[in-house]
Structures are given as structure tokens and as C-alpha cells.
């Protein structure tokens, strides 16, 4: 293909489209959610997920989850090669059902937190994090 001005513009536009699109959620993520909830319906409600809107470095993205009545909270990064991130189980001496940690994100994607509440129901929260440099070592 000859590199004409038109082709160069097309290629540039294509490259922008490719990088701009968030990573698609994989079937593995759906499976992990189903394994955690046992297929139960996941509603909205008492759960908070705090993550930065833009993360410059996907290798360490600080996140925080909290939910007043959760017994367990699972965090997933749906665009990662292995979507599960961590599962927090709170024992009798946990003062609050909250925890923070640092995670890796392969690229711009949705981070999801699902909490299992004391009454056995599930709620989820999700937030999109834009990642400038991915954290999976290419």
C-alpha cells in the first residue's frame, strides 16, 4: 500500500479508535461473578467503590470498598486477563466493612465490586478507570 496523505489520516484515525475503546469484559468475568453469587440476582444499594477516574500507572491503582452490612466483598477488573482481583471476608472483629488496597489494571476498563450482605442478597457498584499505561507487562 502506498502511503498517501489519505491513507495516513485513515491509519491515524484507526489508531485513535483502537486505543480509545475500553477493554471488553470477558466471559471469565461473568463466570467469576456467577461463582460468587451462585447465580443470584445482583441489585444496587449499600456498597461504595472508590477508585481514581484516571490512573496514570496501571500497576498500582488505589481502590477502596465499603459496605455497611456486607459479610464479603469481591472486587473484579473485567478487562484484565484474569478478572478476579480480591475477595474480602469480614470477621467478627472487623470494625467496618471496608478495606483498601492497590490493584493492577491492564487498561481502561470497569472495576466492579460485589458485596454479599448479611441477609444473603448481593449488591454491586462499578466505576470506570481510565488507564494511561497498562499494568500487565505487555
Amino acid at each position: 500500500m502506498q502511503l498517501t496523505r489519505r491513507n495516513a489520516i485513515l491509519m491515524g484515525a484507526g489508531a485513535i479508535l483502537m486505543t480509545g475503546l475500553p477493554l471488553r469484559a470477558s466471559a471469565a468475568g461473568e463466570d467469576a461473578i456467577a461463582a460468587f453469587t451462585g447465580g443470584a440476582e445482583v441489585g444496587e444499594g449499600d456498597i461504595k467503590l472508590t477508585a481514581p477516574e484516571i490512573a496514570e500507572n496501571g500497576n498500582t491503582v488505589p481502590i477502596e470498598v465499603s459496605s455497611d452490612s456486607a459479610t464479603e466483598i469481591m472486587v473484579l477488573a473485567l478487562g484484565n486477563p484474569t478478572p478476579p482481583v480480591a475477595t474480602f471476608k469480614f470477621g467478627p472483629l472487623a470494625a467496618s466493612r471496608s478495606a483498601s488496597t492497590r490493584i493492577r489494571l491492564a487498561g481502561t476498563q470497569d472495576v466492579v465490586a460485589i458485596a454479599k450482605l448479611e441477609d444473603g442478597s448481593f449488591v454491586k457498584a462499578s466505576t470506570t478507570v481510565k488507564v494511561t499505561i497498562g499494568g500487565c507487562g505487555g
Partner: protein
Amino acid sequence: MAEGVKPRVKVPKTASAGEVIVIKTLISHKMESGQRKDGDGNVIPRSIINRFTCDFNGENVVDVTLEPAISTNPYLEFEATVPESGEFKFTWYDDDGSVYEEIKKIAVE
């Protein structure tokens, strides 16, 4: 055992009965995700801390399952209630079977 693994935990030395304290833990560990390749294109095998627990006098505070998506040098912060004097026991479980432990005493005044 993975090299250079060193747990660090921040717990106050004293508290009042029933007080809520913030605990910060960090363990130096490379958390090799199993996704990276070396210079020859071979996949570097996964080697991570896969579980962390914190107990106070035998009662559980948190039990965390860690996956490869946790960053190098896993950092965890959470809150605990201190009903009486005693000790916090922190345990990290490595993929290779090693277990790293750290104990912090706290006095209730």
C-alpha cells in the same frame, strides 16, 4: 521461599476498650502475575501471595483472597475493634507454600 519477603504492619501500641483502630499492612513481594514474559518470550510462572488473614486473640478480623491483579508489594488497610489487650496475628500465604507471620501486641488502658 521467595526472596526478600518482609512484612510490615502498622498497629497502635495502645487503645481504649472497644476502640476502632486502623491497621495498615504491606509485604514486600514481587507478585509475579503469570502474564509477563521474559526476554526470550517464555512466560514467567505465577508467584503471588494468595491469601492474607488477620486475627485478634484467635478471632478473625479479615480474610482476604488475593489474585494476580493485586499490585507488587500488596498493601491492605482495614479497621478492627479492640475489645481487650492482646495480640494481632497477621498471616500471608505464598503460592509456593511459604507462610509469613507477624505479631503485634496492643494494650488496652
